[in-house]
């Protein structure tokens, strides 16, 4: 579900053009509204905060009062995880795999979206639909042949590329779908001017389109990075031992040391930090990107 949910695909919903819109409206902040917001926050963040705080507790504390606060606060669990070479090894794997995936998705996706947006040629819409239909293919359906292809035919089992390549492939449809309308919106005058000045269309792509599409590129890049960082099934089948990524590490750790709840929570908390920080840093952009896709 992780990979597929953010696929906010068009059909563009019809909506009367808003003349004036504000995000804030309604009768203002009555205590009831704040109470409701508080409940929402508590339910949403509760489990996350429990994980973070649990990492500061001991197993004895957790057993004594499962829902209590750390008393005293212990740094031991976090220290243990942060000094464990396995954790850093997994973190490195996650970073490299997600980095490669993002690079492939962004470069290939932008390249593919360009002619689909700005060239006229027969079969353009057919080519676009190839990617569009790709949105419907869940990785799960292809997982067994994919496993065989990567590990047996390409001999890329247990390697960074073995995971990054298919992940990028499954990320491409969404990238193309998000980038194409963005590239369509680049004004024709700009292209005409560039062509007049003697640039080729390839030159126009590298000199004008690539820099201009930075905001959209960042959006798809972050989505690809987070999806890859969070991915489970494909790494589960392809990676073993030292090559595992953090989600695999978390799942392993939780089965292997199931009695060490505090340790599991510390490991889990540290594994969730990068994606969370990364996402929140560019959250505004992502949200407006998603909203743009939904609004059509």
């Amino acid at each position, binding site marked *: 579900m992780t990979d597929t*949910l953010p696929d906010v695909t068009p059909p563009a919903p019809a*909506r009367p053009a*808003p003349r004036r819109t504000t*995000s*804030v409206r309604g009768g203002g902040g009555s205590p009831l509204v704040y109470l409701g917001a508080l409940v929402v926050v508590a339910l949403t963040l509760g489990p996350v905060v429990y994980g973070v705080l649990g990492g500061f507790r001991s197993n004895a504390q957790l057993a004594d009062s499962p829902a209590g606060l750390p008393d005293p606060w212990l740094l031991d669990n976090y220290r243990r995880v942060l000094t464990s070479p396995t954790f850093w090894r997994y973190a490195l794997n996650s970073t490299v795999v997600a980095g490669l995936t993002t690079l492939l998705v962004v470069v290939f996706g932008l390249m593919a979206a360009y002619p*689909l947006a700005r060239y006229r040629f027969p079969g353009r819409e057919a080519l676009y639909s190839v990617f569009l239909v790709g949105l419907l293919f*869940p990785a799960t359906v292809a997982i067994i042949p994919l496993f065989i292809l990567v590990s047996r035919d390409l001999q890329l089992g247990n390697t960074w590329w073995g995971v990054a390549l298919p992940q990028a*492939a499954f990320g491409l449809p969404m990238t193309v779908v998000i980038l194409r309308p963005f590239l369509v919106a680049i004004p024709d005058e700009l292209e005409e001017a560039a062509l007049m000045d003697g640039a080729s269309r390839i030159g126009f792509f590298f000199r004008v389109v690539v820099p201009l599409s930075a905001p959209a590129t960042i959006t798809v890049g972050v989505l690809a990075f987070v999806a890859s960082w969070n991915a489970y099934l494909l790494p589960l089948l392809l990676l073993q031992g030292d090559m595992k990524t953090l989600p695999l590490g978390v*799942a392993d750790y939780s089965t292997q040391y199931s009695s060490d709840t505090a340790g599991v929570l510390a490991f889990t908390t540290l594994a969730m930090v990068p994606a*969370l920080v990364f996402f929140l840093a560019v959250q505004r952009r992502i949200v407006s990107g998603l909203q743009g896709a939904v609004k059509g």
Partner: protein
Amino acid sequence: MRTAAEVLFFVSPALALFLLFVVWPIVKAAQFSLYRWRGFGPLSDFVGLQNYSTVLHDEVFRGAFSHNLFIVVGSIVLQLPLGLAVALLLNRRIRGQGLLRTIVFVPYVLAEVIAAVVWLQLLQPEYGAVDSLLSGVGVPVPDQGWLGSPDRALWTVLIVLTWKYLGLAVLLFLAGLQGVPQDVVEAAEIDGASWWQVQRWITVPLLGPTVRIWVFLSMIGSLQCFDMVWVLTGGGPANSTTTMATFLVNEGTKRHNYGIAAAASVILFVVALFFALAYQLLVLRRDTKGAAR
């Protein structure tokens, strides 16, 4: 001709990657599904549609299918009203609105695996925080834990999924709310409509297209549900939480019944496609028609 060369230059890397790692494996899955094959030796034991018949008669797979339907319906029934309520709440003038919107989205950003592991700890039968909180307020808790009994496990999975994905619904609904024309709302308010009446008769109906797209996404996601179930229950107890995806991964990777796994994956695909097309035809069509008008 120059255009053709340029198009080729730009599109071929993406197309190659897509054909090799997406289209080819799916074609292979369709092929595997027609053979009895355990992953070694040549693909020679052609059995026609027998794998399909085996899968469709398998009690576990039938269960998995019904669990997926349960998750499809359950997700919509729980997340739609909750998501609407939270979106309407966060759309009001309220301090810290931006922060609240970010917070609501946090579970969605977490990996399903990570969310699942945290919930595993929360839901531990004896030492878990959930049981401790519930018994603290006098709610009886099951001895074998929320995930340990076949009657409750699927419901528990559904609740955790709701927690994980509510943020997406809220975010999309909030985006839709931005498009509600303010003057209509104001006109209604001047005519003496209460906040509740405005939401009921103006805001929510205008949110229709957004809701319909969200339902589509939620449906497809629910049909493919894997990570959360795999980590929370592994499909148990007694297959009470198996989904089509966990079924096929289990058959493929643990039992090496590649033919069976492939047949199950093709069925999963066809079901997803059927849902997508039917929904497109019956529901989303209205929106696209409106756009063309």
